[in-house]
């Protein structure tokens, strides 16, 4: 402690300096409190974008107040000599190092992502159960926009531990799957043919990519999975919806019924 010069630094603190620092902290806290309480009340009387901008400014203002307070308080308590500053910044660096450990982890992961490219802007990925389109890749995190227009921020550090499922991997080929759960006792070959035609004749189908129908048997019936590619990934939801709708219409015409609810055997 002596080598760090902390003892000398602490010895130079006077009671007057302490009072000054305390007053600064109290004033800053009051201003902080006022910002936290008054600005949201003002924002609630506004509407639209001004309200959002005002609410977003609250944490920023608090940060500015805290930084200014530190800038004003530290010189009051500690004489800005070389040894004192070295001591303080040394302690600060140690604390920040522990605090920003995860941030640095994500920063390095971000650099690895540029090289490995597990996802790119425009990719449709699933990470930890969240599916969406990668809209932006920042320094620390990537932004995912879900089909419900929710933005999810995924730290790049997830790369080390999570499984990342990428649907199109930098291309515009995204396979879509429409499922049909049908009651048994029907001509399966005919159903496969009909569903293939439904997919192949869809206006948005990429006809030069494979169109497949895969069927599997379950205790309660048959599952048909129609796999095809739409002309662009953003059309996937319309594509799947219309495949399902037209396929259901065709099945109804053939007298093939859907399973109402899967029956779970004991």
């Amino acid at each position, binding site marked *: 402690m002596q080598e760090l010069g902390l003892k000398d630094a602490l010895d130079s603190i006077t009671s007057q300096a302490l009072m000054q620092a305390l007053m600064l902290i109290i004033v800053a806290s009051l201003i902080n409190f006022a910002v936290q309480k008054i600005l949201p009340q003002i924002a609630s009387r506004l509407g639209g974008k001004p309200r959002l901008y005002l609410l977003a400014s609250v944490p920023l203002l608090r940060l500015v107040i805290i930084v200014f307070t530190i800038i004003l308080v530290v010189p009051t308590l500690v004489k800005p000599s070389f040894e004192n500053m070295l001591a303080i910044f040394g302690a600060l660096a140690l604390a920040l190092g522990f605090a920003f450990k995860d941030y640095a982890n994500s920063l390095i992961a971000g650099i690895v992502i540029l090289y490995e490219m597990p996802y790119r802007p425009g990719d449709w990925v699933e990470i930890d159960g969240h599916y969406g389109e990668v809209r932006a890749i920042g320094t620390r995190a990537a932004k995912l926009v879900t089909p419900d227009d929710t933005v999810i921020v995924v730290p790049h550090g997830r790369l080390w531990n999570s499984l990342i499922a990428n649907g199109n991997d930098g291309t*515009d080929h995204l396979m879509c799957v429409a499922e049909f759960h049908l009651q048994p006792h029907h001509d399966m070959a005919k159903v496969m043919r009909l569903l293939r035609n439904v997919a*192949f004749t869809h*206006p948005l189908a990429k006809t030069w990519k494979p169109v497949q129908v895969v069927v599997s048997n379950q205790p309660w019936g048959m599952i048909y999975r129609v796999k095809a590619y739409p002309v662009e990934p953003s059309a996937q939801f319309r594509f799947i919806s219309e495949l399902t709708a037209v396929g259901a219409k065709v099945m109804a015409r053939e007298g093939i019924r859907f399973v109402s609810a899967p029956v779970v055997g004991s």
Partner: protein
Amino acid sequence: MHKSETMSGNAPENNPLLPGGLIPIEEWMLPGASVSRTLVGTVGYWLEQLRAEITRPDESFDSLDGLPELSADQLQQLAPEPDCQLHGQALTDAVQRLREADQCRRSVLLLVAPPFTGVAQALRCFPDCKTIRQRQDAPEQGGSKNYRLILPPVNLLMDAETARQWWQNQPMDQPWVISELAAFWRRHHDGLALVQELLRLLAADQAGEGVIGCSSWCWQFWSNYYPDAQLTPWVPAPMTDERLGLWLQQLACRNGAQIPVVRTTTDGLYVLPLESADDKEQNKKRKHANLLRNLAADSRGIPGVALAIWQRALRARPEVDADDTADESTEQGNLRGNTAHSWVVPLSQLRLPVMPVSQERNFGLVLHALLLHEGLTIADLGLVTAIHEPDLSLALSRLLRADIISAIAPTAEQAEHIAKNHLDATVDKNDAESKIWRVTPLGYPTTRRHLQSWGFPLDVF
């Protein structure tokens, strides 16, 4: 440097009505443009899209340059539409040669061609065309029968059994021809049966002797639907600059006129006639423009598109060549083609239709469907695109204003066919519902580029 080929047309690849003859589809290659032309064209397209996005113009198509275009009569003389009968005869001869040379061993020959090649119209004339052997034989000898044209049913949505019965009722015991396979199906899960059954008959060699014409876009669909079906189609050779020059010359000379002299408006370089060996012997120094090469590239080797651009590029005010001692009577705008010159603007100054800007896919869906089926009524368009009103009409009106598509009343033959086969149908030529929507030849290049940028399936041409 252009070299004229023989105009006799004795060799099949030198027939000016079918330059290059028929070739296997694998040998087809896109005519190349100069690097500068390709770059300028690409950048120009995107700048037009950006400009349209920013300024939101009226979107109606109009030409930019101020020179008057040729009148209909002048165009009919200088750049008329091809004669389907002659084209059909050239195709008949080409098909006969393929069979006699044992290059096509299948009993049914599949002819695939890009849109606006005129193959469908020419094949419709097959029943009236005589083969080489028939022309050589004496009439009393009889000889082989002429082709019989098979027309599609009015209602194309049918099941497999109905399709089978329909084909059984067609006269396939004598040579038959289908002018356009695209008219025999609809991109709908119930609209595939007729073509599926036909292809089954072809695979089983139960279809007799025939010729099937197929649009390249229709072929793209069916070759992907049956990827293992090796039908080895034949295609007309692409229109390179030389072939295009020959073809345009023969069009202009069809009415007995001499080969016209066509020069560019900017620098007076010669476009027609093509450079020949006679020019060198007579020490005629003529500098030729690169226009035909660019025209072949811009039109993607498709004669109908090239002709439309050529007709648009031709200008009035024919002038007399300064080297000739022409008198005033020759300078009266007389386009007899004897000594008068005609003028053509460089393609870089020509403004072709530009695709309207839209954030939705409806334009692409409509245009792709129109190319797939070589023209559709509004009802069929709604069926194959699944676009409902009023979105469909809105898209059609915007594309119509931009001269990308056109609406054509059904021909008398089509109306008769509908009335004959569908007793409940009444075809009124003025009725909007019975009009057939098609992509225009001038709109085809931008249409194809639009479909490519939006990821739609494209033909191989």
